[in-house]
């Protein structure tokens, strides 16, 4: 037990404590920049991910939690999701420990991951849209049936996904996949809060997704989950990739910290 406490304490050097406010400010500045540029992503965890990778998982966790609470001082709607941001920071730190940001991946892996991701996304959306309510219970259509019905869509998803993987991930597929996984986890754990605290809506553009899912018959929690699953993984993958690029531009002595 003492060892765990010590390893947690070791992450919080003075340098880490000075880094965290800077990271939180980076979160907010980039998050707002993205709104300025009218891009359909959040990208509001880049600072958190940076701290996770540079200082460690526990530092990332604290950064995420604090970032949302402090941002909540101006935009109160982000505060209840502090635990999601904390988990993102934690997972970024773990990904950093496992070397996801140190190793270059082969290009074919990036193509593969992009293709698989878009394929799953297409499957997910189509399954929800074709949801039927039988005797009060939601019934998902079968995978085989969907594949046959929307074959063209799936092929397009594979191609587009592969292309995006190639150009976006390049040789940072390890970092990118870590981002994807983190995004999926984030979507899952934020859904209950959206459902319970916010009545199932986000108050922003992604509510169109919520409306679509609700119209197809999904319940509140499922729609919140679905909305997150469509937007979060891509957003986090993108964020991890930005951090990947940042880290490659930093002089070596930074990474020693």
């Amino acid at each position, binding site marked *: 037990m003492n060892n765990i406490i010590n390893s947690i304490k070791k992450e919080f050097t003075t340098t880490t404590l000075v880094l965290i*406010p800077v990271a939180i400010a980076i979160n907010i500045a980039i998050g707002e920049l993205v709104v300025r540029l009218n891009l359909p992503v959040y990208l509001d965890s880049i600072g958190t991910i940076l701290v996770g990778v540079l200082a460690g998982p526990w530092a990332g966790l604290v950064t995420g939690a604090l970032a949302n609470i402090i941002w909540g001082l101006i935009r109160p709607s982000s505060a209840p999701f502090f635990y999601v941001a904390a988990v993102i920071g934690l997972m970024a730190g773990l990904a950093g420990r496992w070397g996801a940001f140190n190793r270059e991946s082969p290009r074919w892996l990036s193509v593969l991951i992009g293709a698989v991701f878009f394929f799953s996304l297409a499957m997910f959306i189509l399954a929800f849209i074709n949801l039927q309510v039988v005797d009060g219970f939601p019934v998902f259509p079968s995978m085989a049936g969907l594949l046959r019905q929307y074959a063209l869509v799936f092929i397009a998803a594979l191609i587009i996904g592969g292309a995006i993987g190639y150009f976006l991930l390049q040789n940072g597929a390890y970092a990118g996949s870590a981002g994807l996984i983190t995004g999926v986890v984030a979507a899952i754990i934020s859904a209950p809060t959206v459902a319970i605290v916010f009545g199932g809506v986000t108050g922003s553009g992604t509510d169109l997704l919520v409306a679509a899912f609700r119209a197809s018959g999904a319940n509140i929690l499922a729609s919140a989950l679905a909305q997150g699953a469509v937007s979060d993984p891509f957003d986090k993958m993108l964020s991890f990739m930005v951090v990947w690029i940042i880290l490659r531009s930093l002089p*070596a002595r930074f990474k*020693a910290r």
Partner: protein
Amino acid sequence: MALIELSNVTYTYPAAKFPALQNLNLQVNEGELVALVGANGAGKSTLCYTLAGFVPHFYRGELKGTVAVAGVDTHTTPLSELVLTVGLVFQNPFSQISGSKFTVYEEIAFGLENIGLPREEMKARVEKAMTLTGIVDLAGRSPYALSGGQQQRVALASILAMAPKVLVLDEPTSQLDPIGTREVFQVIKTLSQQGVTIIMAEHKIEWIATFADRVVALAGGEIILQGKPEEVLASPLLPEHGIGISRYTSVARLAAQESLWPAGRRLPVTLTEALDGFANT
């Protein structure tokens, strides 16, 4: 008994191949103002960090030899106690703002809160430090709303408020404009006249010549020359090791080659010395 004593100090940064300081021996007496000169990379900053204890406590790496400041061994004393004996001010005025205080007054008190001083004593020290550095009228301003020279004086005041026995300054004016430079040097001069022990790394030779008690020239992590300012700053060893010298010295050196400078007369460092010398040709 010297206030500061470095014996056989050798230090290598963690990822470096060559040592930044090699077999350095240095003594500083109480009340002295010692100026460190040297080319970039010669070890001035490293020496400053070593005096303040950040080498080895912050930078890790291997520090050999002994460093004793006011009777305290920097190896065995924790950094949080060392900073009470040695105050450190460095180049970038902006990065010395703690960020956690909204006014200059509170910013200067930041260090005093950390060491747990009672409120009345904090106020007395803050006000004294502000008077010394001439920033009393800035007390209510945000530290971010100041010029570089003002911010550097706030940094100085913040360290002075902690009443260290030694003040270490690492190129305190290199990022300031001429006005800011003059403001800061004025404060340093006053402090030196009041008997504060100061070690200052600097490039601005002409300023050093006016108030340093001793000059130490570094190259490659070693001391190549030390002594009175007039002697060290006029020495040909300095340009040989890439250390910038006063323009009056360079002009006089060229003039001496043309026999336009009185033979045997020491090369000038300041304008006054140059004028005197050329008037006597």
